[in-house]
């Protein structure tokens, strides 16, 4: 059928395979050469994380405020819901008032959710 037909012959893929092999060998060879030939001077400055020349402060894996996390998650949710407006915008005229009512209902549910998280205190930054 249409779906899985017209497979090219394996021979046509030979140049690609050669290029693949060459690429892998080249990269591996370069890494190996630089590993064996390069001088090794390990100073403490060199082993530090590079942060544009500024001395690093503390650990990057510090726990961050959970407030930020909550707001980020809520942002993801509300941001993605906007996706449903794209098909509506394309058919804005042909859907008429009925479509508008449907979208209004959708937005109402949306606001219900927003009101809920607001009332729950998820958006409060200061305790």
């Amino acid at each position, binding site marked *: 059928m*249409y779906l*899985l037909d*017209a497979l090219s012959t394996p021979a046509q893929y030979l140049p690609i395979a050669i290029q693949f092999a060459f690429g892998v060998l080249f990269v591996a060879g370069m890494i190996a050469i630089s590993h064996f030939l390069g001088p090794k001077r390990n100073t403490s400055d060199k082993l530090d994380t590079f942060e544009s020349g500024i001395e690093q402060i503390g650990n990057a894996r510090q726990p961050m405020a*959970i407030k930020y*996390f909550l707001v980020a998650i809520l942002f993801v*949710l509300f941001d993605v819901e906007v*996706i449903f407006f*794209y098909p509506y915008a394309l058919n804005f005229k042909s859907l008429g008032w009925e479509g508008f009512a449907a979208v209004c209902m959708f937005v109402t549910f949306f606001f219900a959710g927003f009101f809920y998280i607001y009332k729950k205190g998820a958006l409060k930054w200061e305790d």
Partner: protein
Amino acid sequence: MPINYYIFLAIILFCIGVTGVLTRRNAIIIFMCIELMLNSVNLLLVAFSKMHHARALAAGAANTTAGIEAQLFVFFIMVVAAAEVAVGLAIIVMMYRNTHSVDINFLNRLKN
């Protein structure tokens, strides 16, 4: 471009996702692999949508909407995946606060 390329690409991505879920031990990475699976499905949906559309056009149906439902399906997958991300990350954070680790090898309290 023939549809086969898309199918192969999507299936390879999907298999990478499955392999990642089955072999990795970090909850976040497993989660990313699941997202990879979903996104490969999205890619395949869009490709099939185009394919069915072109086929309907070739069959002589002008102004056809064939294939449009697959693109809508992609929207739904994205939204549901976002909802899943919200819940999943919340669960992972809850786990992290209690154990200070996201390694799923920690998950053996229920075995005995």
